[in-house]
């Protein structure tokens, strides 16, 4: 099997894995559809922005939850932002944690919020690693003379 076919097989398997395990959903596929010759770095760009935003929000939420008197409204607004952006890029697991997180904010449940925040952080790290793997595979395909295959 030549290199290109090998890489294509790898990327197909990896994408299937990401979808199957719920790391990404159909919205991520929609993002990939928007990539073309005029905007080849679109997905990488949006994903990078997302993780930058994620880090900022996680830090802000951590600070807010450390306060003696927690401003749950503020935490909730951060969660709302993260919920929206994770949904827009198809980061399904993160989005799901945000739903639970919102409930904890509404219930003013500090421990619940702290747990959710830890989960958000964990999911962000996992997704970041997974997408880096995916992007590397895509780069390898392009380097081997192929074009990035459309995802299922």
């Amino acid at each position, binding site marked *: 099997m030549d290199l290109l076919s090998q890489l294509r097989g790898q990327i197909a398997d990896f994408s299937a894995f990401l979808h199957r395990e719920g790391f990404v959903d159909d*919205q991520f596929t*929609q*993002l990939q*559809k*928007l990539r*073309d010759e005029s*905007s080849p770095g*679109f997905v990488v*760009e*949006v994903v990078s*922005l*997302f993780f930058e*935003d994620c880090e900022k929000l996680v830090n802000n939420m951590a600070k807010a939850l450390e306060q003696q008197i927690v401003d749950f409204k503020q935490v909730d607004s951060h969660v*709302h*932002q993260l*919920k*929206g*952006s994770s*949904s*827009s*890029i*198809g980061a399904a697991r993160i989005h799901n944690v945000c739903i639970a997180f919102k409930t904890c904010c509404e219930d003013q449940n500090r421990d619940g919020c702290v747990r959710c925040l830890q989960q958000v952080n964990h999911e962000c790290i996992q997704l970041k690693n997974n997408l880096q793997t995916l992007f590397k595979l895509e780069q390898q395909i392009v380097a081997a003379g192929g074009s990035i295959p459309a995802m299922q």
Partner: protein
Amino acid sequence: MEIMESGAADTQQKHEEKYQQQTEEKHFHVLAVDDSLIERKLLERLLKVSSYRVTFVDSGDKALEYLGLLNSIDNVKATSSSSSSSSSYQSPRQDQGMKVNLIITDYCMPGMSGYDLLKRVKGSYFKDVPVVIMSSENIPSRIGMCLDEGAEEFLLKPLQLSDMEKLQHHLLNSLEHSCERIDKSLNTDSNCIAVRNKSNSNHGSVSRVRRQMT
């Protein structure tokens, strides 16, 4: 825009200006309002792929400012904090190339919500510009409220390419209505009421013929 036949160079320049104008007019101009950078990036891509020209602002206030609606009587606070305009009244933005054909706005934004923006637009010079609201939350009462206030469409986030087709529909409708108004005003009819849901494909072609004739 009439072409003056006062010399070859003059005519040439007028031809070029007309071509430029038609090129700009070929692409609908969308004013997009969202406070989230990531949402704006996605929307930018969706709109550009659909061949729209886009202007982005990150708040309702900035949208009003762009449209020239900010310094109105009922917004004294904004006037004093606005640094860009020195005059007390800013006329609505009517520059040929920057005409806004559709406004798409997020519902949930800090400060002015998409709903507030919708109300302001519908009560202004731009009341016939279609406004589309986006929201990540599927709340029937919210949707009803926006549609009642005159929103053309309510889109659920996350947005996809298929949502862009809905925009096309509203843009074409609004173009049709503006042609009807042009026709009516040319016929010196003072009752310039845009008739909704009136389908008359002739009006589209009438406007094209007029542009060719000028």
